[in-house]
C-alpha cells in the first residue's frame, strides 16, 4: 500500500520538458510529489505515464491538473489510467470548502442585530406558546376525558419520585453545612442555640425550595427540552398533529402539571430533610439533642415561613417546566440544536427562578411575612 511516486524530468525538443512518471500514483503516495512538482516552473510538454503501476482518482486528478496547467499531452496511459483521467474531467477545482469567514467588525454588529431581531421573534414565540397552553387547558376543560392522566402520572414519577434520593442527599448536606457554619459564627456571641432558628427558617423559606428548583431544572427541565426536541426532529410531533392529537395537550401540559405539583412536594420534602440534617449536626457538634432540636423548630419558626416556601414552589416548578417545554418545541434542523436548546432551557429556567426568588423575598417581607 505504501508505494511511492517516482518521477524524472527529461529535456525534450525546443526547451520543453518531458515528465516521466512511475510507481504508484495513489492517494497514499501522491502528496509529496504533488508539492514538489508544484514548485517546478518550467514548461512540461509531455507527461509519460507508461511506467505507472497503479493509479487512482487522486493520482489521475494530479496528472490531469498538471496537464491542464502546462497544456501538455499525456502519453503511455494504460486503459485503466485513460478511464480514470476521463472520469476526473468533471473535477471542480480549488475552492473553499466552507462559507467565507466574515471579519470581526462586520460579524459583531451583524450578530447583535440578529440577536435583537431574534429576541423579537422569541417574545412572540413565548407569548404564542403560553397562548397555546391556555388553549390546551381550555380544550381539556371542555372535554375532561382528553386529559392525559397516564402521561401526568408518568411525568410525576420521573420528575418527583425518581428525584427523591438526589434531592434528599443534597438537602441533608445543605442542612449540615448551614447548621455547622452557622454555629461557628453564632458561638462568637454565645448564641449557638439560635442555630435552630437559622436552620429552620432558611430551609423552609429559601434554600429548600430554591435548591430543589435548581436541581429540578437540571434534572427535569433539561430532560423536557431534550425529549420534546428529539421528538420534533424525528417528526413525532408533526405526526401527532396530523392525527389530530395536540402535542401541547399530550406532551407539554402533562409535564407542566407534573412539574408544578411535584415541586410543592419536593420543596417541602427538601426543607424537612434539610432540618433533619441540621438536627444531626445539633446532636453531634452542638450538644442539642435531636428531638429537642425538632421541638424547638416548631416553637421558633413561624407558620408563614412554611407558606412562603409552599407558595414559591409551584411557581418555580411552572417556570422550569415552561422553559424546558418551550425550548424543546423550538428545536428544528439538526441534533446540534437539541443541545443548544437544552442548555438554554436550563440556563433560562435557573435565571428566572433566582430573579423571581429575589422578588418574592422582598414581596413577602413587605406583606408582613418577614
Amino acid at each position, binding site marked *: *500500500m505504501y508505494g511511492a511516486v517516482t518521477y524524472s524530468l527529461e529535456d525534450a525538443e525546443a526547451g520543453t520538458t518531458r515528465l516521466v512518471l512511475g510507481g504508484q500514483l*495513489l*492517494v*497514499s503516495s*501522491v*502528496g*509529496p510529489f*504533488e*508539492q514538489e512538482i*508544484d514548485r517546478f516552473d518550467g514548461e512540461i510538454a509531455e507527461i509519460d505515464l507508461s511506467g505507472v*503501476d*497503479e*493509479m*487512482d*482518482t*487522486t493520482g489521475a*486528478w*494530479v496528472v490531469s*491538473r498538471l496537464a491542464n496547467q502546462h497544456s501538455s499531452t499525456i502519453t503511455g496511459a494504460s*486503459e*485503466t489510467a485513460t*478511464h*480514470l483521467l476521463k*472520469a*476526473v474531467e*468533471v*473535477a*471542480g*477545482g*480549488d*475552492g*473553499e*470548502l*466552507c*462559507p467565507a469567514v466574515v471579519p470581526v467588525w462586520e460579524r459583531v454588529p451583524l450578530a447583535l442585530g440578529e440577536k435583537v431581531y431574534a429576541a423579537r421573534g422569541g417574545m412572540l414565540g413565548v407569548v404564542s406558546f403560553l397562548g397555546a397552553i391556555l388553549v390546551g387547558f381550555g380544550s381539556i376543560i371542555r372535554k375532561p376525558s382528553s386529559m392525559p392522566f397516564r402521561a401526568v402520572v408518568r411525568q410525576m414519577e420521573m420528575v418527583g419520585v425518581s428525584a427523591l434520593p438526589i434531592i434528599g442527599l443534597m438537602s441533608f448536606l445543605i442542612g449540615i453545612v448551614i447548621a455547622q457554619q452557622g454555629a461557628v459564627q453564632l458561638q462568637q456571641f454565645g448564641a449557638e442555640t439560635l442555630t435552630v432558628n437559622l436552620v429552620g427558617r432558611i430551609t423552609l423559606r429559601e434554600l429548600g425550595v430554591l435548591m430543589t428548583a435548581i436541581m429540578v431544572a437540571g434534572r427535569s427541565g433539561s430532560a423536557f427540552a431534550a425529549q420534546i426536541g428529539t421528538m420534533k426532529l424525528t417528526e413525532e410531533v408533526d405526526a401527532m398533529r396530523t392525527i389530530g392529537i395536540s402535542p401541547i395537550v399530550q406532551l407539554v401540559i402533562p409535564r407542566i402539571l407534573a412539574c408544578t405539583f411535584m415541586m410543592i412536594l419536593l420543596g417541602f420534602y427538601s426543607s424537612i430533610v434539610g432540618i433533619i440534617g441540621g438536627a444531626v449536626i445539633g446532636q453531634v457538634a452542638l450538644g442539642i439533642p435531636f428531638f429537642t432540636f425538632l421541638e424547638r423548630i416548631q416553637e421558633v419558626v413561624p407558620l408563614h415561613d412554611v407558606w412562603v416556601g409552599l407558595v414559591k414552589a409551584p411557581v418555580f416548578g411552572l417556570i422550569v417546566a415552561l422553559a424546558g417545554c418551550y425550548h424543546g418545541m423550538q428545536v428544528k*434542523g*439538526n*441534533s*446540534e440544536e437539541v443541545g443548544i436548546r437544552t442548555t438554554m432551557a436550563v440556563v433560562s429556567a435557573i435565571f428566572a427562578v433566582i430573579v423571581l426568588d429575589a422578588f418574592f423575598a422582598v414581596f413577602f417581607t413587605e406583606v408582613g411575612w418577614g
Partner: protein
Amino acid sequence: MAFDESEAPHERFCLEPPIVVSGLVNRFGDFAVHDGLNLEVCRGEILGVVGGSGTGKSVLMRSIIGLQQPTAGNIDVLGRRITDTDLDQRVGVRRRWGVLFQGGALFSTLTVGENVEVPLKEFYPNISPRLRREIARYKVLLSGLPEEAVLKYPSELSGGMKKRAGLARALALDPELLFLDEPTAGLDPIGAAAFDRQTRDLKETLGLTVFLITHDLDTLYEICDRVAVLADKQVIAVGTIPELLETGHPWIEEYFNGPRGRSALASQERAHSA
C-alpha cells in the same frame, strides 16, 4: 486498483476474495442473529445482500467493518483478520474501505466539502491543503451532487443529497471496498436509478468491490453481479438471480416472483431490449 477486466465477476471461484466471513455467530442475549454464517465476496463484484427485516443484514455489515464484535467466527477483510485485531491495527485496512450508512451519517457541524475532507486529513496528513480541497470537490461532483452543495451543511440537504454526500465521503480515500447500507431507500425512482447507475459506473471506473444491502429489487436486477440471501441466521444462497431461483427456496421464490419482483424483472428486460 489493478482490476483485471478479463476476470468475469460471475466467476464462482474467486481469487483472494476481499471479504471472507466464516462461522460467524452474533448473539444478543439469548437471541442469535447469525449462527454459523459463511460468506465470500469476490474482487470487483457488486454483491447485493437481501433478507427480511431483522435477519441481521446491518449487523453483518457492522461485523465486517468492525463496529460489532461477533460472539464467534472469523472475518477476514483484504487479507487481514478483523475479528482478532484491535482498533489500532485496523487502521491499515480501514483506509482501504468506505462506508455509506443508512442516513448518510454526515458530521452535522461540517459542510459537505469538509465532511469529505475529514478522512483525507485523518489518514493522509502529507497531502497539501490545496490538493485536499480539490479532491473533496471532485468527490462531491463524482457522487452526483451539484457544485454548490460543497458549501452546504447536512441540515440543508434533502435525504437523497445526504446519501450522495455520504457516498462522496465514503469514496474520499479511493477505497477498494465500498459498503452501502440501503443506498436507495427513501429516494425517488429517478434518484434511485441515478444512484444505481452511479454505483455501477464507480465500480467500473475505480474497480471497486461493493457490498450492498438493499431491499430495492430494481437495484438487485440492475447492478448486482451476485446476490446473497440472509435467512434462518445464515446465508442460505449466493449467486445470480436466476441461480437463486433454481434453488427453489420458498422465501427466495416469494421475494423475486412477487408482484414487485416481476415488475422489476420486466423493466430490466425492457431496458435491455431497448
